[in-house]
């Protein structure tokens, strides 16, 4: 019997299949389409300290083998989450990973502080693709100093597993992963979306209300696989890989590149049962190949 169990830092998962933040809401929308308890873990959409109304529409557009989104982190804010969403989520018997974001270090820290001690939160994921309003709008995730300091501040308030989710829009992701590790992150997640734009040639202006957005889906998969591969060579932390995973073979690419767990984002929109399908597919692959433990495959592409 092959085991799909995997471990990311202190977190034990029954399967390596997670939802990618922002693509699965708080889980309830997909509850009627699948058994949520078959997920390896649920990463909910990013929450912020205060509610955010998000960007003006259109917020998304399809691109070749991908899509751009500019949701603008619409979410009901921490209080509403704690009062209305968390109690429902606590009833699910799967690890819950909370994604948080802020416009200042203090906001991230305040979120961590408020969440520390809440039951039912298995890990915190830092969405680092946010501009630091105090530092002239530089993204936390693109600057080594900002990133390191931010992770450190959050670490001071959060004792559980801490995931730093990296943006691919940088010259050298590895440097940023090192900074996150030094700051105290336990796990690296990669990748968030790649910035992109579509021009509406009829209106002669950017199509999205926010002008630009983040690219996801199969189109970005080769970029994501390369980043996971590079991270695996450079750092010791476990990696959650994502970017364009649509089926079992895609997930295997990430695992062999070095991911201990993988997340499905855009794939959920195309086929809501992507995660259960991959879960079954991985099991079948492992049994056919005589692999008992998923860890035998993690990073397998590096061995030769």
């Amino acid at each position, binding site marked *: 019997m092959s085991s799909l169990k995997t471990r990311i830092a202190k977190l034990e998962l029954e399967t390596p299949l997670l939802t990618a933040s922002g693509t699965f809401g708080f889980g309830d*929308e997909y509850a009627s*389409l699948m058994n949520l308890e078959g997920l390896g873990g649920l990463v909910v*959409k990013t929450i912020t300290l205060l509610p955010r*109304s998000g960007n003006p529409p259109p917020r998304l557009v399809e691109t070749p083998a*991908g*899509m751009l989104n500019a*949701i603008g982190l619409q979410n009901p804010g921490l209080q509403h989450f704690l009062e209305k969403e968390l109690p429902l989520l606590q009833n699910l018997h799967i690890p819950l990973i909370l994604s948080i974001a802020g416009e200042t270090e203090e906001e991230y820290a305040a979120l961590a502080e408020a969440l520390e001690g809440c039951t039912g939160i298995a890990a915190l994921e830092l969405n680092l693709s946010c501009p630091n309003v105090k530092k002239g709008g530089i993204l936390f995730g693109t600057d080594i100093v900002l990133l390191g300091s931010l992770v450190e501040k959050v670490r001071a308030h959060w004792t559980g597993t801490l995931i730093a989710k990296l943006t691919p829009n940088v010259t050298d992701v590895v440097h940023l992963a090192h900074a996150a590790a030094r700051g105290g992150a336990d796990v690296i997640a990669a990748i968030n979306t790649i910035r992109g734009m579509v021009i509406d040639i009829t209106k002669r202006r950017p199509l999205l209300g926010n002008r630009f957005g983040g690219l996801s889906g*199969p189109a970005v998969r080769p970029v994501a696989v390369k980043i996971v591969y590079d991270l695996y060579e450079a750092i010791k932390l476990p990696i959650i890989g994502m970017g364009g995973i649509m089926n079992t073979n895609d997930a295997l690419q990430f695992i062999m590149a070095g991911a201990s767990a993988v997340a499905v984002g855009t794939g959920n*929109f195309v086929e*809501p049962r992507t995660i259960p399908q991959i879960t079954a597919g991985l099991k079948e692959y492992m049994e056919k190949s005589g692999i008992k433990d998923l860890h035998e495959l993690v990073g397998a592409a590096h061995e030769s």
Partner: protein
Amino acid sequence: MKQCQALVQEINEVSSYFYCLTLEEPYLAQTAQPGQFLHLRVGNGIAPLLRRPFSVAGTSPATGTIRLLFRRVGAGTELLSCLRKGDWLDCLGPLGTPFSAVGKDPAVLLAGGAGVAPLLFLGESMLNAGKNVHLFYGAADAKALLPVDRFLSPGVLIHFATEDGSVGEHGNLSDVFKLALDKGLAPGELFACGPLPLLRVLANENRRWVLPMQVSLEENMACGVGACQGCAVLIKKDGETLYKRVCREGPVFNSSEVVW
């Protein structure tokens, strides 16, 4: 709401670029309400990538069939148009919040172009509920006009408008409708679907008419089930504005609540 595999029972080109697709899927046929839509998987899931939303244009609960009307405008609808009898189609549905008949008789349906699809379903169901129904239906020219009478039981009063005057009244839909009002038509409530500019004009005029008016809106969609927040439109409620989801709180909104 379910994920279903529907069987293509029939597909026809009913006017230029317009297709009528009949699917066999009892659950959808029995549960779909006017204004709701299906989210269809077209192609192999790479390009086109995302599902495509289409309003339900009619159902036959008895035979377990459901009808869509769609215009071929891009890669996704191109693939849909190539379906053949006997093919399977992966559908999520029924999705979204339906129309609700709240007002007085007669109900007036205002349809521009492909926007006629959900209104045919609505018209038929109101007719069955014993209401008086008028359909104003506008298109660029005769070629673009759907043979709507084929999709409606006798009883709905149909008014055509074409921009070149080739069929029905000459002019755009809102002008033709205004003429009918001038001539004495007294609608109890309005239901509109079509291109945004048309809906804007109608909503604006309705500030004078002050009739109950529901509109069905479109926005680019990813999940279709309310999870991604991608299909937001700006809504005003109690003096505040906030984004609502076309796929969940919509596609039907109260015209007076939409920030046009």
